């Protein structure tokens, strides 16, 4: 596993050779294992995404993959590995480095009934094409009174990788999450990656699918059900990754692993945290979040993105609106530092939430010191 991700898988300056630190933090935690008591197999997130794409392409000839280096290069992060050989260049389309152009072409193809899966080498580059995602894709069904739906998936790594600096290390969850007409999915585990990507491809609306580069090489246990070609997860439903009674921690993508790790540490201090893996930022599963907070009376939100107008801000607002009287403590928000991402390791570490930040904030929410 490490062998794979230690390769220089990046392109366009996207090398991510330093994983050891993250790998340790993200080794699947015991609590995650509990959900898969019947699990017999482990699968990397990369293989989960690859198999989901493969199966959906096999099932529906309208599904095709388009983006930079998805074909002959086998994917900048090898998510599309092997697909060109299997489905040919008509369905695995290498594009020039022109995001606005190929994103618009993808949306146009979706207008006419195809089901494009558009890969952004990273979501940072989707800024070149954000007009097509928002104005051309998200709004067309509404503007046309329901005539023109847009069955398209925009996918790729999102958020910070390691050591790639400010222009390649931003989470766009809150950006896309703000747009009606889009669905925004944020997988954490291999189960999420498979189930949500298959759901996204089958969905008749535009879906922004935010992956995480650091998670690609991580292995998670997968049940037989998850491996079934018909497996699909519901869009808009969060998953309670860890049951708890004292405090609710919400997280998405890589931060779910951090939250689970924090919950283990907190358990030793007698705090029983419930960890919610959001899975979907839009629609946001307000019911699951509020039900949990009504049980635990405390909330900590965790995200890598910026705090201001962030996902945590929306979750906090939802809880204040619907469950104000249940709160026993101020809501705590753990988020990315309010700075462009620095390059150097010590500053980069300070720019993103660490497990100890989650532990500290959760204790604060529980009125427990140190």
């Amino acid at each position, binding site marked *: 596993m490490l062998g794979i991700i230690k390769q220089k898988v990046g392109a366009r300056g996207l090398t991510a050779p330093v994983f050891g630190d993250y790998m340790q933090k993200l080794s699947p935690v015991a609590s995650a294992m509990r959900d898969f008591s019947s699990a017999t197999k482990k699968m990397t997130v990369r293989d989960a995404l690859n198999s989901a794409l493969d199966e959906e392409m096999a099932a529906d000839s309208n599904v095709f993959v388009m983006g930079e280096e998805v074909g002959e290069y086998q994917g900048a992060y090898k998510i599309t590995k092997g697909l060109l050989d299997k489905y040919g260049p008509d369905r695995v389309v290498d594009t020039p480095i022109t995001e*606005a*152009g190929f994103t618009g072409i993808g949306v*146009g193809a979706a207008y*006419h009934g195809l089901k494009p899966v558009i890969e952004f080498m990273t979501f940072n580059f989707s800024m070149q094409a954000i007009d097509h995602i928002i*104005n051309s894709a998200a709004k067309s069904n509404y*503007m*046309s009174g329901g005539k023109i739906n847009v069955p398209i998936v925009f996918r790729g790594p999102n958020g910070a990788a390691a050591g790639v600096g400010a222009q390649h290390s931003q989470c766009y969850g809150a950006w896309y999450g703000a747009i009606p*007409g889009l669905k925004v999915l944020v997988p954490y585990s291999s189960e999420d990656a498979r189930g949500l990507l298959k759901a996204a491809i089958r969905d008749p609306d535009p879906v922004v699918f935010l992956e995480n580069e650091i998670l690609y090489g991580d292995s998670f246990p997968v049940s037989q059900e998850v491996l079934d070609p018909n497996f699909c997860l519901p869009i808009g439903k969060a998953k309670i990754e860890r049951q708890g009674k004292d405090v609710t921690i919400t997280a998405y993508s890589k931060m779910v692993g951090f939250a689970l790790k924090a919950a283990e540490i907190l358990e030793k201090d007698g705090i029983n945290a419930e960890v919610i893996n959001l899975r979907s930022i839009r629609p946001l599963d307000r019911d699951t979040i509020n039900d949990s907070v009504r049980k635990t009376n405390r909330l900590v939100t965790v995200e890598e993105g910026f705090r201001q107008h962030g996902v945590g801000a929306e979750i906090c607002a939802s809880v204040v609106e619907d469950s104000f009287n249940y709160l026993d403590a101020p809501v705590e928000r753990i988020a990315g530092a309010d700075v462009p991402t620095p390059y150097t390791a010590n500053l980069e570490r300070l720019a993103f939430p660490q497990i100890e930040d989650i532990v500290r904030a959760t204790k604060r929410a529980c009125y427990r010191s140190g």
Partner: protein
Amino acid sequence: MALARRSSNLLKPLSTASSSSFLNRRPFSTDDSTTITIETSVPFTGHNCEPPSRSIDTTPKELMTFFTDMALMRRMEIAADSLYKSKLIRGFCHLYDGQEAVSIGMEAAITKKDCIITAYRDHCIFLGRGGTLLESFAELMGRQAGCSRGKGGSMHFYKKDACFFGGHGIVGAQVPLGCGLAFAQKYRKEDHVTFTMYGDGAANQGQLFEALNMAALWDLPAILVCENNHYGMGTAEWRAAKSPAYYKRGDYVPGLKVDGMDAFAVKQACKFAKEHALKNGPIILEMDTYRYHGHSMSDPGSTYRTRDEISGVRQERDPIERIRKLILAHDIATEKELKDIEKLARKEVDEAIAKAKESPMPDDSELFTNVYRKGYGVESFGADRKEVRATLP
């Protein structure tokens, strides 16, 4: 201009309502076997391609159809102007009068399985694809009977069953979208093409060149139709483009400069382009045209161009007058009969407006429909979530 005429027995009443046009009220008989050969107003100019012949065959029926359809488009736009001024149309409204020959000529060369996508000056393109006056006016006035159920407005007309994909408000964005439609056509191995329309303003957009590059790499059946009306809003072409020869701007992509005020030149060019695109991939058609109105309703259209220029074009190049002259020159109809057609267009437009006004505004509950095709029953909120919330269908 008129070269040959082979029949004069043209004034029998039409017995059946079969018509290639969107109106079934033609009072003139036409013998389909009658062929009239005419010559386009000016020669085509080619870029990396051998231009088609100036000589084109038509029929009395087609001439009458062109006249009738363009008269209706013209009348619709004039009426929209009045409705706007009486505040029955809101927001933006971009009128097409002057440019009618582009839609008419294009439609005459292609089928409804060929796709069209355009920018915000879309009313007449919609009509050309078979959309109705009622759907148009109801949409402009934000009514339920509108083609987008009142949710799109002037800039967002669509007719998917006739492969018309909008109606887009972001200048230039429709060009990659159109190349995407062509991508889908090629992917499915169809024998159809996409006409992607944009103005001289959009011709300088970067994404156009990105999409054109891919269209050429992949031989997509994409025809880029640059409707050069010589002003991007109020900026004259020469102030915005280092090279205003838009048909040459594709460099490695062939192009054709066409008199966009001559419906027959447009038809000939579109036929040529369709054949080219199916065989060889993309081509650019620059339609030299003119809009009589300003850019939009807030633009009197007179600060950046002279009134003489506008009236000169009206006198010398008007697309409807060109057809009128051909019809008269060939004794296909009398001046009075043509006036009657224009009167009928006025009547039809007035009736459609009256009917559109009877259509109710969308129900409040429509605020939350069509956000998604599949809303998963998710709860959605209005401005005051305690007051207005809905379950998305």
